[in-house]
């Protein structure tokens, strides 16, 4: 049995014949589309490593079945910035050393992009910490993450960086 869906991933439309309805959005991205930047940390919606934007909102891709995403627009870490360029969040993560092993990092960055788009950050560090708490980082890069998100949020709001 196959099931056809259309997904737009990082601006590119994909017409996909799913041979298995159990495939999650995360496994579809990683194993069938080769977009391995999105990581699997738990497969249970508990760590945030798999965060992507679906129609502009952040989502744990491990909790979504691919078959349910027909017609969705999906942005992954690979599509956050044009090829060869860095998104302000990516640049801020590098500057603030907001990661160590890097495994949670794509999820952190996509989650931060969603957070800023939600307008929920207010460039307030407390709210950023709260809003980023669905993304675990076992290396403990939290201070850098909060600072990077604040810096990127400020620069997106047209304010000058501290």
């Amino acid at each position, binding site marked *: 049995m196959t099931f056809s869906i259309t997904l737009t991933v990082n601006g590119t439309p994909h017409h996909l014949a799913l041979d298995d309805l159990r495939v999650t959005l995360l496994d579809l991205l990683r194993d069938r589309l080769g977009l391995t930047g999105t990581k699997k940390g738990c497969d*249970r919606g508990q760590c945030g490593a798999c965060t992507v934007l679906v129609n502009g909102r952040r989502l744990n891709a491990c909790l979504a079945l691919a078959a349910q995403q027909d017609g969705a627009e999906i942005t992954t870490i690979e599509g956050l910035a044009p090829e060869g360029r860095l998104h302000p969040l990516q640049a801020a993560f590098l500057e603030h050393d907001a990661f160590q092993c890097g495994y949670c990092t794509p999820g952190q960055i996509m989650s931060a992009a969603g957070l800023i788009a939600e307008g929920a950050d207010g460039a307030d560090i407390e709210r950023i910490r709260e809003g980023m708490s669905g993304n675990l980082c076992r290396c403990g890069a939290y201070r850098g993450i909060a600072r990077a998100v604040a810096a990127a949020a400020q620069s997106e709001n047209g304010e000058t960086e501290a």
Partner: protein
Amino acid sequence: MPDDIAPTRHQRLGSNAGDPHSRLDGIAKITGAARYAADNAPAGLLWAVIAGAPVARGRVARLDTAAALAHPGVTHVITPENRPALHKDPDLRAALFDWKLDLLQDDRIRYAGAPMALVLAETAEAAAEGARLLAPEIEADPARIGFGDGLAFAAETVGIGAPPATAVGDVEAGFAAAAQVTEVEIETPPQYHNAMEPHAIVAQWQGERLVIDTPNQAIVMSRPSFAAYFGIPPENVHIRSPYLGGGFGSKAILNPAQILACLAARETGRPVKLVLSRAQMYGPTGHRGATRQSLRLGVDAAGRLTALSHHAVSATSSFDDFLEPAANAALNTYACPAISVSHSGSRWDIGTPGPMRAPGEATGSAALECAMDEAAHAAGLDPLDFRLRNYAETDPATGRAYSSKALRECYALGAERFGWKTRPMQPGQMRDARGRLLGWGMGTSLFPAPMFQAEARATLRADGSAVVETAASDMGQGAWTALAQIAAEGLGLDLAQVEFRSGDSELPDAGVAGGSGHTATAGSALYSAGRDVIAQLTALATADPASPLHGAGNRAVVAADGWLRIEGEDHRRESYAAILARAGRDALTGRGKGARDPAHAEARAMFSHGAVFAEVAVDPALLQIRVTRLTGAFAAGRIINPKLAESQLLGGMIWGLGFALQEEALHDRRSGRLLNADLAGYHVPVNADLAEIEALTVHEEDRFVNPLGVKGVGELGITGTAGAIANAVWHATGRRVRRFPIHPEDLA
């Protein structure tokens, strides 16, 4: 608040080392391009899933392999009945870093999650479903878990081959001479590494060669361990481990999934990918074993320790022997004329524990720092004052001088930054604006500064740039960056001129990324490889009449920015490229080794130190505990990259916070299964658990640890922090909690 405080000024020492350079692997990590083991998908891949035991003790009576095999996509089911032979007995420990493994050798179950079968399929989904369809019938025996139910035994060794007991001086006489004796019992629970990257392997055979993508903390050293199971020479094992998504000790020791995947790949003739689920990381991949520690501290009227005894019962598995060396913390931290430390074991039906970030030091220092706090209070002394009175000027265990020790400076800097001097002596005296009880506590951080063995190669190329090579592991500590900086310094080149190749077992052995000794060891090898290149280059130039450096004689030749020049005669210089060109060489290769000078190792005690100050706020109604401030000040020799070192120290302190308030594996007493084998039930710190946190460093010149003066920072931050937080909880509430993690209900 620290978010506004400018970073500490750091000394830049030389051309590259000391520079807070951003991570060289950073772009790959923030764009998703960094390829971790599970991101590899060679053509023709089979997916493997382990079916793990649902109870902790018993035997597998039946598996429905037919049902699994009947599922579309499932190709093989490997059980003890058909498991192909291995060249080595998995219950034999051939080397120091070998753990006994459960590799389907029989139907016994020794811990929950131990492999019962391996299912192979064309897709991940089919393999997972196949494993579920095995529907095991189990003959279960009662699980022996917990210090009450475990089997006590005398320890032969603790940690990796260390003696189980050590005594210095006459402890009984010391207690007899004490004006007060403080006795403390503290328990620490099983904790799990929980690296964000689950253990993963992609294994493929090319004839008699085994090619493996897997995160590994000891890339070259692991080759013989793999090879032994398959009867092939170690050189036939090629391990690729460019990025590790965290390790913390769990990726230094082989785990059953790795060997089973290699075996399945050989059996099927296809590449096999095996990725553990999060739940499967609670059992076969090591953990920090539980401890029950008893401490006695004798203190005289002047507030000086007269005797210190520290005993730890450490939990291990029913079949292997790794014991958390917790009590050794008492050996090296505080001056005391009589110290006795000892360990014993308790066998539980669990997976074998192993090294987890600061193994022994984390658990031991948590207990010791709590005991020191109690003793200080009993003596009517401020906790910092008490520690200063018992400051060790020489190593208490050996009497040796320290290679360097700026702990006093750490105490002073941390206390000043934190505002410690206004701390009231009695608990329960401070409240914040929201009416929460505030408490301040402190702890001393201590971690050894070991070195292992490493080798490196540096090759200068015709254009004056260089390639440097060693099989280092970067699990987030920053090896890709800090080691490249050291290599560049050895070569007298700018960092941009140096290409660093690492993370692959075909390169020279960089030793283990563990014990916080990787930068010191692999860095020393890289540095000396660079110096070897410079020595050869200097010989070429000074012997050549056409070179401006000709006849330099005994005058020093300096290598910097790609030029050799004679010191004090700056016009007598020549570029590396020009020297090579005239000599007709298109490359020049140097080699280096990293290891400790045995004479210094004999004569000196070598440790990194620090002081951690914590503030907690406790809601008087809910008893919820929040860490509102954490300030650490650390001395760890010369800091190669302050930006990355700060991240390491902060990460360690955050582990200390998790240790103090969150992390604990809970077992169902009947089945022995873990009740919280996931990231929703096993709590690790999240971003909102952090308020203000800072890690400061104090520079140390150390000419004994190694020529670079480098110690380590990877594990230091967790020590001291857990105790500091527990002591702050007491200072807020007046409650001494004897068990980690501290729960709100413990304060009721």
